[in-house]
Each structure stands twice: as structure tokens, then as C-alpha cells.
């Protein structure tokens, strides 16, 4: 790590003011940032510790029925929160399928939402990377690209978003509150995580001096609680990033789907949703043929960015699998292996 100054502001206003200084970074749980600093990818001159700012570690039911989650809530605390387990079980399952117990105890909600891609070329300061250094080029293209994007990528950047947590959040239309020098603004998940285009590589849309203060699950998003699953394919049973993953949620009216939500992880620079795919679910009965059609629309336009054509079929299958699991109902108890395709509970079948 290169030397830095360590600052602990007492208030959010002080943190916002401090963060506007050049070469400053906010420190929360540190599980991503310290790793990037050790790699030489992040080289802040000033580290602003916001982990103990007052008022950012609460989970509060809102008068309108929404749930407001402070940005400094630890991932493990959120995954165990009774309101989350009851109303948003796929969020808890996604959290518990990610990282390890030690990392989840340190990592925060805000840090997870603003974490960087695990693209190995981004993580290698010697490699050209448009995300780290706009205009430098992308050394991942033509390189080792098994894990890279198959949807929404451009020649500027083919990295994927690493978060499990963000996949059900995107499906639930979650929003985030961001405090900055000009006051507080609220943005949706898609706006927070832009796709790359010809000019920009799709870094999280947060500006210097802005602090992500809260995550809001909108009112009514607990309608899916009875049929919500997160399913994640990875290269070992636990403690690995997704190759592909899917969050599926169904609001059931007897044997009919009133509304469905579906998002893919591990395939693009952000969790991937397609409104037309979800619309196919409304008013239908859960059915393997329907789910396959939905997954087909969801993955329409997918194309390899390198050695990752296999992910397109996997993504389609994981979407079907998540829908089948959601239709079967949210398990009464969190599965022993959250999000695992090898779960011994339930009746997940190969498709």
C-alpha cells in the first residue's frame, strides 16, 4: 500500500466535505478497498473512515411499507434481520451465498453496492484498463475471459458486476440514497450501475464527495416473499464468485403468477433485467416451457466477449432453475448451502 492520511470524521457533513478533496476514498468495511490498495489498484492519499458515522447502521420499516437499510449495516446483520428474512428472503439468500462469514461480518451494504469488478485485468495495475484509466484500452479483450460479460458489453469494457446481493436488489427495484455537497439524491440500481458504452467503462455512478447513505426496498416488494429464490453457479460449492446466477421472484395468486421478477448475475456490468421477459410471466401458470421462453427473452442478444460463450447457455438454464425454485416456494428455513445448485433441500431439478 502507498502511504495515506487516515481521517475519521464525526458527522456525515464532515465526511462529505473531506471526500471532495482530491485522491480521497471512503473506508467502510474495507474488504474490497484494502484488497485493491494492497494490489496497487487503489492508491488513495487520504482514507476517510465512515464506518462509525452515526445513524447509518439501522434497518427501519418505513411508514409507506418500504424498508430503509443504512449503508453501514453489515452484510451478516442484514442477512439475519427478521424483516429481511420475512419480506425479502432472496436478498438474505444472495447475501449468504456470497463471500465468507468473516467477510460478511466486515462488509457493509454501501460497500457491496459500490464494490469493483473482479476482472483480473482491472486488478492488475500493469494491464491496460479503461475502468482504472479511461482511454487506456482494455487488455481483457483477447485475454483470459472465461468470467467476463456476455450481455451489455462494449469494446470499452467487458467486466462483470461481482455482487450477489445486487441481483435480487435490482429485481426488487431497490433504490439508494446518496448524500453529497449539493444535498441528497436518490437513484435506482440501474442508474447506480451504468453499462459501458463507447466512451465510459461503467464505473459506479457516484461522484467524489458523495456518500451512499442508505438502500431502500420499495413498498410492496414483499409481495414476492413466498416465492423468492437466488440460485448461483460457481466453481466450488462455497466462497466463490458467481459464474452465472439468477434471482427469481413470483407474486402468486393461487396457481397463477400475478407478477414476476427476474435478474441475472455474473453476465454483465450490472444485474441484467429485461421487462419483456418478466411481462411474459404475468397471468400465467408456472410451467417449464413458459420459464424457458422467459429465459430466452432475458438472454436475447447475448454474445461472447471472448472464451465465455458457454455462459450464455448457463445463464439461460440458471434463470429457468431459479424460476422453478421460486415457483416451488421459499424454503421455511434458509438452505444449508444458500443459493447453491447442489442444495439438498427442495426439489431443484436439472434443466
Amino acid at each position, binding site marked *: 500500500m502507498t502511504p495515506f492520511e487516515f481521517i*475519521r470524521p464525526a458527522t456525515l457533513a464532515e465526511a462529505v466535505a473531506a471526500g471532495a478533496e482530491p485522491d480521497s476514498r471512503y473506508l467502510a468495511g474495507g474488504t474490497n478497498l484494502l484488497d485493491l490498495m494492497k494490489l496497487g489498484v487503489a492508491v488513495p492519499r487520504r482514507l476517510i473512515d465512515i464506518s462509525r458515522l452515526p445513524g447509518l447502521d439501522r434497518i427501519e420499516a418505513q411508514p409507506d411499507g418500504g424498508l430503509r437499510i443504512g449503508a453501514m449495516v453489515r452484510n451478516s446483520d442484514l442477512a439475519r434481520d427478521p424483516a429481511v428474512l420475512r419480506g425479502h428472503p432472496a436478498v438474505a439468500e444472495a447475501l449468504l451465498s456470497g463471500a465468507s462469514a468473516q467477510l460478511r461480518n466486515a462488509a457493509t451494504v454501501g460497500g457491496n453496492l459500490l464494490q469493483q469488478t473482479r476482472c483480473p485485468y482491472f486488478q492488475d495495475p500493469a494491464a491496460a484498463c479503461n475502468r482504472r484509466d479511461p482511454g487506456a484500452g482494455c487488455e481483457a479483450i483477447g485475454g483470459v475471459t472465461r468470467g467476463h460479460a456476455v450481455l451489455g458489453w462494449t469494446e470499452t469494457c467487458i467486466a462483470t458486476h461481482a455482487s450477489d446481493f445486487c441481483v435480487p436488489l435490482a429485481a426488487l427495484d431497490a433504490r439508494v440514497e446518496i448524500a453529497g455537497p449539493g444535498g441528497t439524491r436518490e437513484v435506482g440500481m440501474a442508474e447506480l450501475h451504468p453499462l459501458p458504452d463507447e466512451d465510459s467503462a461503467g464505473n459506479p455512478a457516484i461522484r467524489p464527495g458523495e456518500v451512499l447513505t442508505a438502500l431502500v426496498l420499495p413498498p410492496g416488494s414483499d409481495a414476492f416473499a413466498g416465492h423468492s429464490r437466488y440460485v448461483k453457479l460457481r466453481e466450488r460449492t462455497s466462497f466463490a464468485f458467481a459464474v452465472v446466477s439468477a434471482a427469481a421472484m413470483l407474486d402468486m395468486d393461487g396457481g397463477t403468477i400475478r407478477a414476476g421478477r427476474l435478474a441475472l448475475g455474473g453476465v454483465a456490468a450490472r444485474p441484467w433485467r429485461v421487462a419483456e421477459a418478466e411481462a411474459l410471466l404475468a397471468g400465467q401458470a408456472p410451467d417449464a416451457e413458459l420459464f424457458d421462453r422467459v429465459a430466452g427473452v432475458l438472454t436475447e442478444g447475448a454474445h461472447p466477449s471472448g472464451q465465455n460463450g458457454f455462459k450464455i447457455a448457463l445463464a439461460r438454464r440458471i434463470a429457468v432453475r431459479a424460476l422453478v425454485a421460486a415457483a416451488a416456494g421459499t424454503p421455511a428455513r434458509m438452505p444449508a448451502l444458500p443459493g447453491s445448485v447442489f442444495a439438498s433441500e427442495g426439489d431443484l431439478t436439472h434443466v
Partner: protein
Amino acid sequence: MTLSITMTVNGDRLALTLDDPRTTLLDLLRDRVGLTGTKKGCDRGQCGACTVLVDGRRINSCLALAAAHDGSDITTVEGLAQGDDLHPVQAAFIAQDGFQCGYCTPGQIMSAVALIAEGEAGDDPERIREGMSGNICRCAAYAGITDAVREATRRMQQDERRSA
């Protein structure tokens, strides 16, 4: 820049000055406090050898800045035994051959102590394996580790019933 911090480590209250804010909690414990039971494996949060309890919760001390843990209550593997009486998790690791070379063992033991305290895995080997997945063992003593955690869980539950 010099920072002054206080920390309680295994029950001892320490006042420390940090000459360099880059000091991780792991390096502080090993190099400054002299507690070398906590091990540095990958130094990137991937292996779990550096696991300690901070305010009762297990974390990777390699990805924690000491400066950010001013005022924290730390427990390391040195803080588990009561004199010559091993902690039930330590005793179970010996009884069940939960290690071979031993390098990952302090992290495994601290992680297991926290896992049992979290109370979500119980006696279920699959839940124990999942809950211990942040601790890698290059000797692959996993079968013994799982058995040790099960044995310690049962013994600690019995002890609790007896003292209740």
C-alpha cells in the same frame, strides 16, 4: 502521521501509537502486541488464517486497518484457554485430528468458536462446512475439522445445560 488508539486484546487494555496508518490489525497483533498465534496466509481475505474476533464477531484481520478498530475488543487464539485448560474447540481439534501442519489452525479455531456462538449450524455437517468455508486448509484436514466443530458444539451445549 501518528495515531493513538486503545484496544482490549484478550482482556488486556492496551494503549498503542501507530506510526503508519497502513498497519493492519493482523500486523499490529503479531508485530506490536507480540501475539503470533494469528497467522498471515494470503493477506487478502481469502484463506481465513488471520481470523480473530472483533467485538465477538469473526473477521479477517488482514483486511482490517488497526486505526479503524480504535476501541475494539479483540480475541485471538491466545485468549481462548483458561491457563492449561483448553477451550472446548481447541480440545476437539486435537481429539478429532482437525489439523496436520497447523498453520491454518488458529484461524480455523477462531472461526469455529464464532460459528458455534452464531448458533445457526448446530450439529449439521453441511451447515458447518458452509459456515467454515472462509477457512482454507491446504492439508485438507476438512473431515477432522468438521468432526471437531461437531464435537465442540455438542460439548458446549452439554456444558451449558449442566450449568443452567
